[in-house]
């Protein structure tokens, strides 16, 4: 798993490559914690290169959302495979997270 964080204009984009699961969640959380410490106002997680998410991964994202909302920030997700998106739908987490089909759509919708 790799995670890269880039600030593009006013949006902080987290590019995750690989799995978001029980094995990788601790490292992803460390990166997310740095974003939270910076109180980034607009945060996007790009799932284009994410192949797999388990319940630990979902938990990590829920915690990230809670922490960002706690300081008044916004978190969105984008570019999910249909299979991973279906996990958000099954667990009804699609009610908590705004999931955009493409990065451009998500960035524009922050404005």
């Amino acid at each position, binding site marked *: 798993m790799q995670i890269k964080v880039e600030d593009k204009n006013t949006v902080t984009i987290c590019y995750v490559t690989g799995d978001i699961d029980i094995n990788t969640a601790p490292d992803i959380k460390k990166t997310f914690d740095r974003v939270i410490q910076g109180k980034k106002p607009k945060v996007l997680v790009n799932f284009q290169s994410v192949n*797999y998410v388990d*319940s630990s991964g979902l*938990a990590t994202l*829920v915690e990230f959302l809670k922490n960002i909302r706690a300081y008044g920030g916004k978190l969105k997700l984008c570019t999910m495979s249909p299979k991973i998106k279906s996990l958000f739908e099954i*667990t009804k987490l699609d009610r908590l997270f705004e999931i955009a089909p493409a990065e451009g759509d998500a960035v524009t919708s922050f404005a």
Partner: protein
Amino acid sequence: MVTTQMKSETDSIRHASADIVNFILSKKKDAHRDILFDIKLCVEEAVRNAIVHGNKSEPNLPVDISYDIADNKIIIVVEDRGTGFHPANLPDPTHADNLFKESGRGVYLMYKLMDKVHYNARGNSVTMEKALA
């Protein structure tokens, strides 16, 4: 029927799912990737629960895993040495009050993604089935 025993260690989770996915692919090369995704996820959730909740992460306590393919479906049994639990007592993670909770989705996903899920009366052994086509 393949029977294996693993230590209650985090590495056992991915080893178990890799063994089972490879077993399926050895018998059914054209297994759909979405079906393999579901099986991998549910095996990992079941083994994780067995290690963390069942065996309380005590490395010397084993997790017994067995699996086989019959009538074009995979049958997987995961058993721990814990006192067991009753899945009916788990809160619904999709309820509005629970959506922001960080845990409680593993067993729910197992029920949703597998065709059949059955816990024994003690609640320390789960049997899961899923059609491979």
